[in-house]
């Protein structure tokens, strides 16, 4: 963790007022829960929940060579984006390991907006600068934004009350620059919960008021303010990666089941050569989902055994409040990574049985958008 005092978002006092319990996360003092992680989790699955995720970082890339830089430092194909479209992507080191995962938003031909992980933002910024031989303009913009995530099947109905922007026109992984509560907002139909919903980027001074107004607008649906505890259980059910758990500098995209965000044929990018070598040599381990069979909870870092031998480790594990199971993700050698295999998790000095399963553990019913 970075040394020095913990950072706070502009909504810190509001979180305290709403009864949040605060914890340290990636150098930030953030709400982990307001009432109950389970209730907050279920509110997002069944109705709507509101998160302050202003700890996330923003980096803006501008200029005629903006696209060239984005294409060079990220793995997905930014050139396929239309203005107003977002894509999940990754930044890699030359050796193919993850610098970070991120969302790339195309604002205009000469303007890309990146949303990156809180604890990685300074590192990401330096990484991008290091490869900026294109002389694009790179701005560390985190201080100019608060980010609020409004997530759940009632998110659109909630937000509709506070904006003139036509939300039905914003498709999944698209965004528009509009207004919320009369102030400018980037409204993106993205999220980290496995539900429909929006991520809003606003000027910091409007964060508190918009958060309050959203809570009021969602009252009739049973909206809840949600903390990082529910954010983590929601993303785990949806099998979305968390930096420091499923991905880090030692993990490469094919191992993390993230080949779909790597476009090898798009041209040169940082890490590409290493991924070619990896493909030639063969991938040796893979991220696999599991469900506990025994009554036990797997936690991050627990060892995984096959036939009595420690062969892998749990990257994320815990109860899945909506599915009502204990689930987890782990790395296993590819020869043991097939679905349906019985594995053992070393749970505090004893072995507990689990079974590898298809992921995501939870997938919302497909509807519009």
């Amino acid at each position, binding site marked *: 963790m970075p040394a020095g005092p913990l950072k706070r978002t502009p909504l810190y006092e509001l979180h305290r007022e709403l009864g949040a319990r605060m914890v340290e996360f990636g150098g930030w003092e953030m709400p982990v829960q307001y009432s109950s992680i389970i209730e907050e989790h279920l509110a997002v699955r069944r109705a709507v929940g509101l998160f302050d995720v202003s700890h996330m970082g923003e980096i803006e890339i501008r200029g005629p060579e903006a696209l060239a830089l984005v294409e060079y430092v990220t793995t997905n194909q930014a050139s396929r984006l239309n203005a107003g479209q977002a894509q999940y992507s990754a930044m890699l080191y030359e050796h193919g390991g993850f610098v970070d995962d991120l969302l790339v938003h195309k604002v205009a031909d000469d303007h890309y907006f990146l949303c990156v992980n809180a604890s990685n933002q300074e590192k990401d910024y330096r990484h991008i600068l290091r490869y900026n031989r294109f002389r694009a303009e790179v701005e560390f913009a985190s201080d100019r934004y608060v980010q609020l995530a409004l997530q759940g099947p009632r998110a659109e109905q909630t937000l509709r009350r506070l904006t003139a922007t036509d939300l039905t026109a914003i498709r999944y992984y698209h965004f528009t620059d509009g207004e919320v509560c009369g102030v400018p907002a980037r409204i993106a139909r993205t999220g980290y919960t496995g539900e429909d919903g929006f991520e809003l980027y606003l000027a910091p001074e409007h964060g508190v008021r918009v958060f309050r107004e959203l809570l009021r607008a969602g009252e009739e649906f049973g909206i809840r303010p949600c903390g990082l*505890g529910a954010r983590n259980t929601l993303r785990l059910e949806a099998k979305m990666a968390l930096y420091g758990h499923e991905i880090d500098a030692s993990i490469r995209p094919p191992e993390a089941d993230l080949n779909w965000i790597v476009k090898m044929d798009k041209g040169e990018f940082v890490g590409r050569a290493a991924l070619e070598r990896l493909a030639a040599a063969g991938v040796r381990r893979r991220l696999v989902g599991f469900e506990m069979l025994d*009554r036990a909870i797997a936690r991050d870092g627990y060892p995984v055994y096959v036939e009595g031998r420690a062969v892998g480790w749990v990257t994320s594990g815990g*109860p899945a409040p909506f599915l009502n199971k204990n689930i987890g993700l782990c790395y296993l050698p590819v020869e043991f990574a097939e679905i349906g295999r019985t594995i053992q998790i070393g749970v505090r000095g004893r072995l507990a049985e689990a079974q590898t399963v298809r992921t995501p553990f939870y997938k919302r019913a497909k509807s519009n958008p």
Partner: protein
Amino acid sequence: MYPEDFKYTREHEWVKVEGDVGVVGITFYAQQALGDIVYVDLPKVGTRVEQGKPLGSVESVKAVSDIYAPVSGEVIEVNEALVEKPELLNRDPHGAAWLAKIRLNSPEELNNLLDAAQYQALVAEES
């Protein structure tokens, strides 16, 4: 909030002594700090436990926490209801969600524990 007839540990367990048996649980403060409790690991009946040593564990959505025995002795009964309904620990930590009954072998150990007023002060300090 904290019953006068209980004794408390600094690790947020309580014990209520009835004859030579101590009924043991975790405090309201403990369950609140843990959040939703989803799993309880209880000792086997017959286990000998020592004051300040692990008795079992509870798991919330976020994390695992050890429970320490507030008194030494033999476990003579455990609260099986918690296996199916660990959430009882959030609802009634000082009552229905007791964890275990321990036959005390050194009652003088109770002097090492906090009374309700001292425990209340500890909680006020921590929160």
